[in-house]
């Protein structure tokens, strides 16, 4: 038996935009940890349907429990947190983002970068298709009895299209309950112009994100729209949207991708530039964070590039034309909330993925089904069948979890992916023959 050569820590390749984002995140977590000292208020809120621009307009610092959970997952901290949450009575089947978050809380609320995340002054709950969000904040409320809970009811897109009444319903809630609550807690009056300024910058940055996402239509694709994509959506989906830094980030990203387009180069993987684009895939569902790099490696080792993904739309479907509109500040927030991927019904999801398969000339599509996320996972097999029927492209199905490392079985997932890609190969050669 051959022994593998002694392991040397491999050099990890990162794009300039990734390094920039890393610094942005570090600064952000420092800002969060010092918010109290600086007399700022803190709001915990969720990524889908987040009202970051509005929070910034009140000088409130946003904290995203989902982001903390996934960052902790990537940093291999989530396993202990999950076990600690289970210890106090949360079942094995509960969303692992929730448990990772609670576990962090139970361990002194030390965030992913090692800095303490202060308690919230307000829990802003934009309900955008995930029922667990409500329960999550219900539990947090017990731990933070002083925090005020403000709920924004976002109508689910059960019929596929938002109606004017739905839009009006959200705007009214913003005006009548969300804004007054933030005025009360922050001590600042609502200034619509401040919000408009934020939204203007959001729209500018959104152009940059869409440029990045659409670049994957090229052959070879200069980006991986899933594994790389989760980095590209980072600033946009979280605490940076509407800030000048966010605009700068997307300028850097645009330049970097343009350079690769000019050089006819593929995506940058942690092991350097990707050699050959052999398969173009679409992915539905969030990635596994605890084995993120390992999961990615399974793809790039085989020459598989993800050219579009739905997970990169949970914080907004910018690629489908939505832009924050500074001329209609509250209306645009309503549109944004309703249009997040998590708030879409099954037929709309199928249509979107079908469009991706065609527009991005994909060879096939994969679904990563998350064990602890019923909201995302239910209906995925129906999506699979329907897409196969409509496009004739084969679908593959994986099972893992968000941040619970116990549900990532590397050998099995590798086996599935390899089998899937070999199946694509075979079908290709059959089509030629």
């Amino acid at each position, binding site marked *: 038996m051959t022994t593998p050569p002694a392991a040397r820590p491999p050099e990890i390749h990162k794009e300039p935009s990734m390094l920039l984002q890393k610094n942005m995140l570090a600064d952000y977590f420092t800002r969060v940890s010092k918010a109290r000292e600086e007399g700022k208020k803190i709001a915990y809120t969720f990524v889908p349907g987040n009202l970051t621009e509005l929070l910034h307009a009140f000088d409130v610092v946003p904290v995203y429990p989902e982001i903390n959970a996934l960052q902790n997952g990537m940093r291999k901290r989530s396993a202990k947190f999950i076990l600690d949450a289970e210890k106090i009575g949360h079942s094995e089947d509960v969303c692992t983002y929730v448990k990772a978050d609670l576990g962090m809380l139970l361990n002194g609320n030390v965030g992913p970068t090692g800095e303490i995340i202060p308690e919230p002054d307000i829990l802003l709950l934009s309900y955008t298709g995930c029922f667990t969000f409500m329960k999550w904040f219900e539990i947090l409320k017990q731990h933070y009895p002083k925090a005020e809970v403000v709920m924004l009811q976002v109508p689910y897109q059960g019929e596929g299209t938002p109606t004017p009444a739905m839009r009006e319903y959200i705007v009214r809630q913003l005006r009548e309950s969300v804004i007054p609550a933030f005025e009360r807690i922050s001590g600042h009056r609502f200034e619509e112009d401040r919000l408009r300024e934020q939204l203007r910058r959001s729209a500018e940055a959104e152009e940059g994100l869409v440029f990045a996402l659409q670049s994957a239509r090229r052959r070879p694709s200069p980006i991986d729209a899933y594994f790389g994509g989760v980095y590209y959506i980072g600033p946009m989906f979280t605490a940076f949207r509407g800030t000048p830094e966010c605009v700068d980030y997307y300028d850097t990203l645009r330049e970097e991708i343009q350079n690769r387009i000019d050089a006819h180069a593929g995506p940058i993987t942690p092991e350097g530039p990707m050699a050959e684009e052999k398969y173009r895939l679409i992915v539905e569902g969030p990635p596994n964070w605890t084995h993120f790099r390992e999961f990615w490696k399974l793809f790039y080792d085989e020459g598989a590039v993800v050219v579009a993904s739905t997970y990169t739309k949970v914080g907004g479907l910018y690629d489908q034309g939505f832009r924050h509109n500074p001329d209609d500040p509250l209306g645009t927030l309503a549109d944004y909330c309703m249009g997040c991927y998590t708030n879409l019904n099954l037929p709309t999801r199928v249509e979107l993925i079908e469009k991706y398969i065609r527009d991005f000339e994909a060879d096939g599509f994969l679904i990563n089904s998350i064990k602890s996320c019923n909201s995302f996972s239910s209906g995925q097999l129906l999506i699979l069948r329907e897409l196969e029927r409509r496009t004739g492209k084969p679908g593959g199905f994986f099972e*893992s979890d968000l941040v619970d490392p116990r549900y990532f079985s590397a050998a099995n997932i590798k086996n599935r992916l390899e089998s899937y890609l070999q199946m694509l190969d075979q079908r290709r050669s059959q089509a030629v023959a």
Partner: protein
Amino acid sequence: MGYTLGIDLGSTTTKAILLDANDRIVGRGLTNTRSNYEVATAVAESEAKINAHFTFLKEAVDSSPKLSSQAAPLLNNLENRFHLVQHLHRVNRLRRQCLFEAAADRLLPHQPRLTTVLNALFDQIHERAERSFSTADVDRSRFFRDIVGSEYMALAEEQSRESSIALDLLMGLYDKSILVEENQVLDLSFVEAIQQAVEAAGESETLTRVQQKALREVVEEAASQTLEVDNMVGTGYGRQRLPFRKDQIRSEILCHGLGAHYFFPGTRTVLDIGGQDTKAIQVDSQGIVTSFQMNDRCAAGCGRYLGYIADELNLGLHQLGPLALQAKRPVRITSTCTVFAGAELRERLSMGDAREDILDGLHRAIILRAMSLLARSGGITDEFTFTGGVAKNPAAVRALTRLVEENYGTMKINIHPDSIFTGAVGAALYARHTQGGIA
């Protein structure tokens, strides 16, 4: 054109298939060596080649006017003797290994009694083998480790009672030595072994001189056939560690699909229940996989489930199915979690349920899990082919037949006697047709 070889590295066994230029199976090899995949591959390959020589021998005997009248008993006897020669060779190797282990410094106080005891023990294993291999129906499903292991243990118990050597010490020596033995390829060529077998057969059989001469000739001819392997493909878990090129490695999903198509060209849905995973595969009219599902978050309901139950009941794996078929009042068991099923088994036994009734329920539970995987992969389309080690289990087959009928109506369910080789057949086909260019 020469032969192609397909190797399927399983969690329980490693399988090898040798196909001739016309895609006809000429050799099958099966080994339970699994601690080292390279050795397992080499062992399975050499077994397949030996089996191929027997295939040629059978053809030669059948077409020999002097021998064809006695073909069946003659070949059977020859094969038994051949395996005896092989077996004794391994017994001797194991004996040497045990003696080597026994010569360790720390065991010096036990010498020379230990050597005497070991020699006596192996002499008896030797004698017993000569007797058991001469019977007409040798159980080929048993591996060297199984046969020798149980004999060694029984004899070691006797020896430890009669001598002052502790049983633990004797078993420890065996455990160490069998691992070494299993991780070696047999250093005995087909020609050497068959010649010894022919001599022994010639003495025992009532063959005329003319027939004996004819036998030597056909054996010589069969043994002289070279088995040039043009290409090989490996599949199964651990395939990445094989010393194969990347293009010589195929996923077992594809291999099972193609293998099932080889045995039954009408196949559209394949269910494979192996030791550590269950696969539901849909194939097109060419045997090309169009979609598949397998378990990857939890391995409940795999072949290992039955292995565990067999251990719990102190039964051989092959005894489970026939016993479950005798169920009179089947028990409903729904848990497919292996460990829970074990707990339920003990609970039911303590409540007085009959072993066969519980076993029936356990077989149904494992098939229920497979049904859910099949549904996920797109259901069952006629014809339906069942493969993998569990396809050999009659109770699993009965449960599957019933549940398919209930859920999908009547359809043709195929199970091939060589179903355990399905993946290896697919691999061997890929080995041939990758060269030809279809894959």
